[in-house]
């Protein structure tokens, strides 16, 4: 009914109290969490987690289901209060957030266009260019309930980008997007980060796909198992242990081998020779 679930967001007053503001620390730092612990009932979800996202840096959280990735992100955003630990955000940080699950209420008639205009920055030109950049301009007058899961992901990314964020927080941005589209989406995120120097904190299941577009990988399973550059992590014993040696290797050497490519809308792209 109201925002009352255990995961419900905190009132703004609590949020602002929780989020200490970075003043003197590294001027490049957008967001940092230190020694975060969180328990639901007697289940320990996060155990002394520390990480930091800098300007223009892409940090990817990987880990099995139930590892605490989404909880960590929600704590970093100030939506959930940690049991202990410190969350610090740069003052007046503009965050673009793409949540993992969006349930679109079927009784609510709303077009993609109107959904975009709900954002606090609803400049028409910006909406135009953002939708075109993500190749979803044709969806504009469609009902939100009528588009596919993969299309909805792009609409959500578009809404996050409307805020011209300094930090993009993406919870499994590629879920529901087909495999070729996934690679393209990660490339796009990487391009956006480079162009606008915005930091990216992203949850993903597929290291093999984010490898080329991430600067740092944190492998999480209630605690930080290992972290570092993607190549380091994919050879780290803790990573291999967590995902199983065979699976991890199979994933790591996976290359997408097609004789043609699709763009985000599924059209076949002209062949590019490199």
């Amino acid at each position, binding site marked *: *009914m*109201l*925002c*009352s*679930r255990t995961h*419900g*967001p905190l*009132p*703004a007053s609590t*949020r602002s109290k929780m989020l200490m503001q970075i003043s003197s620390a590294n001027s490049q730092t957008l967001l940092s969490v230190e020694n975060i612990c969180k328990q639901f009932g007697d289940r320990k979800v996060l155990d002394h987690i520390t990480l930091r996202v800098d300007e223009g840096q892409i940090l990817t959280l990987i880990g099995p289901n139930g590892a605490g990735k989404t909880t960590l992100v*929600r704590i970093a*955003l100030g*939506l959930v209060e940690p049991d202990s630990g410190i969350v610090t955000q740069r003052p007046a940080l503009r*965050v673009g*957030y793409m*949540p993992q699950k*969006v349930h*679109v*209420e079927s*009784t*609510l*008639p*709303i*077009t993609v266009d*109107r*959904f975009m205009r*709900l*954002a*606090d920055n609803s400049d028409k030109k910006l909406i135009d260019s953002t939708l075109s950049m993500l190749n979803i301009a044709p969806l504009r*007058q469609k*009902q939100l309930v009528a588009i596919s899961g993969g299309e909805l992901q792009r609409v959500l990314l578009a*809404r996050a980008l409307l*805020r011209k964020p300094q930090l993009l927080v993406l919870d499994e941005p590629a879920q529901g997007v087909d495999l070729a589209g996934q690679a393209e989406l990660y490339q796009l995120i990487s391009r956006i980060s480079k162009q606008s120097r915005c930091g990216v904190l992203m949850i993903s299941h597929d290291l093999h796909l984010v490898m080329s577009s991430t600067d740092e990988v944190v492998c999480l399973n209630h605690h930080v198992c290992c972290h570092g550059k993607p190549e380091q992590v994919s050879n780290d014993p803790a990573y291999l242990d967590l995902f199983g040696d065979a699976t991890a290797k199979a994933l790591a050497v996976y290359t997408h081998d097609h004789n043609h490519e699709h763009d985000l809308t599924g059209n076949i792209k002209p062949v590019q020779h490199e």
Partner: protein
Amino acid sequence: MNNSILQLLITDFVIYALLAGLSLALVSGPLGSFIVWRRMSYFGDTLAHSSLLGIALGIITDINPQLSVILSCLAFAAILTLLDRKPSIATDTLLGILAHSTLALGIILLALTGSVRLNLEAYLFGALLTVDRTDLFWILAVTVFACAVLYGVWNRMLSATVHTELATIEGVNVERLNLLLVLVIALTIAVSMKIVGVLLITSLLIIPPAAARRFAHTPEQMAILASVIGALSVLAGLLGAFALDTPPGPSIVVVATTLFLVSFFLPERHRS
């Protein structure tokens, strides 16, 4: 026959009834839409049922009846909001228990006071034709307040309804908006009790938006269309009540439900 209806139409109590009904229809568009979108209809129902207890308490303590209903609606809204924050049992179970226990308690207390025993039906199903100048004043005041509040926070309220967390991240104070919505619902229910009664109030809030859903492409269209459907229900329901000598409150609800059913047989609006 025609003559007598015409004569009725120009009398004060019919004009008061009509204005009160149309006023509620106007609020029911936008407010009812939010209740539907947020799945709060059971919440509204519980609030309405519990307001009978408020009336009984008002009679016992001898406060102004309109004031006692408003106060009790606000108190119950606050209690429900607090209980919902720390859920120990499923929300719908909790609401079901409270809705019916407060209704039962209200009926018992009313029976004990004795004097109003004959009026029980009026509280349960409304007594639209007994709406007087003071009632109308309260209804119009709450209508203006509710419409002004919803208009003022429309975009933020919509954003919070579509996705709580996205709205929070974008700087919307979701908690405050939730409280504001509950306040508006409680006030609306409190003043519209005379129109359709505690058992039928929620239906007038949710049936018009439900009927409007299939023909709307935007939230705003749904809200406005729901107000129009609500107004039609009030007009046709009142006319029908005079012509057939049926109770006005239930007649209005039956017309609204008929319009809802008819909406399924009309072609849905498509945009190319």
